[in-house]
């Protein structure tokens, strides 16, 4: 497969560079991180989650992580799906209003409650909701929960997705997409720092 490796691309690792060579020692890890990317963004069977939804949510995840280059990569993918200008502008606006610091959230009541960390409950702005529609708007709210305060997750958060037209299977895909990106973005960020830190 001659696919450019997305993690190398985003981390700026040239073929044959010291860190690319270290990654080459674990070809199964490398190949399956890439296979994960393809399964989510170039799926053989996309089911009922559209390409536009996938790239829009990825742009939002990367933007919430304040990783502008990675957000630009997924924004380019979104542009390929020919969204309206209002749709793309709404994702960008929601990134700006959704940014905060995590992880925060509450534990089940008990000894760990002293470690509860308060944080904002994000809501999609009315103007964005009009441009994004019910389904993507509900997804953004769930993505924000997963990115910043996953320990606040509860069945009602999933019910909100079902109510907005996401099926059980769509929710699994959406959850994998956000969770995978939490991994990919950290791998890229870690490799970039390592690559820029001389021994």
């Amino acid at each position: 497969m001659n696919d450019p490796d997305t993690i190398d691309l985003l981390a700026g690792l040239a073929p044959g560079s010291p860190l690319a060579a270290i990654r080459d020692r674990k070809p199964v890890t490398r190949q399956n991180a890439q296979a994960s990317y393809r399964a989510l963004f170039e799926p053989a069977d996309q089911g009922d989650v559209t390409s536009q939804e996938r790239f829009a949510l990825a742009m939002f995840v990367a933007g919430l992580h304040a990783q502008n280059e990675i957000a630009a990569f997924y924004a380019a993918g979104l542009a390929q799906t020919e969204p309206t200008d209002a749709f793309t502008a709404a994702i960008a606006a929601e990134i700006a209003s959704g940014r905060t610091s995590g992880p925060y959230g509450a534990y089940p009541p008990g000894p760990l409650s002293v470690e509860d960390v308060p944080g904002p409950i994000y809501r999609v702005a009315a103007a964005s909701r009009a441009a994004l529609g019910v389904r993507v708007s509900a997804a953004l709210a769930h993505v924000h929960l997963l990115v910043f305060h996953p320990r606040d997750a509860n069945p009602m958060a999933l019910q909100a997705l079902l109510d907005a037209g996401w099926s059980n299977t769509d929710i699994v895909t959406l959850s994998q997409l956000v969770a995978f990106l939490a991994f990919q973005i950290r791998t890229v960020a870690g490799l970039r720092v390592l690559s820029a830190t001389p021994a």
Partner: protein
Amino acid sequence: MTETVIPHPENDEPIVFTQAMLDWLPWLAPPAEDALTERQRAGLVDPARSKSAYFRLLARDPDILGARTRTDKDIFYNTSSGLPRAERELAAAATSRYNGCIYCASVHSRFAATFSKRTADVQRLLDTGVSADLGERWNAIVAASVALAATPIAFSAEHVTRLRSAGLDDGEIVDTINGAAFFNWANRLMLSLGEPTSAPR
């Protein structure tokens, strides 16, 4: 058929971090074991995983599950070179402790304790949290994992320097990054698609 979530109001939910065996209850219906398609079975990779409600639920999207599972296994089990298994599990346990995933922390704290034989140190990580003093090499791995788990990501040159000072070469640092980064994937699925339970069935 209208799909709906599955609440577990009677669940005896664990309220502390523990090395004990826990079980997990899904909030969405997984496919029944005898209803799994060939593609879904292929996505499970390991046939024994068809017993797990968690993996059967993820099998609703089989291709990403298969790639995720192979990524997971190679990051943690491929010790042909690089960081010892115990310290990969430490990165997983520290990440899970910091993100607040009681289920993931239970599994990977057990593995960290098994492979390191440092059960008491692992328990201090669970009891005290990620600021527990576990000796400099483990402290450096925990601090790097925590910095990587933060959003925005706080992992910096200081973490790399500290890992190097603790004796890790760049291959071992890449293993640390992979193990810690992977648990930001695992924690989010475990925390958001169901809940842990103290009562193994």
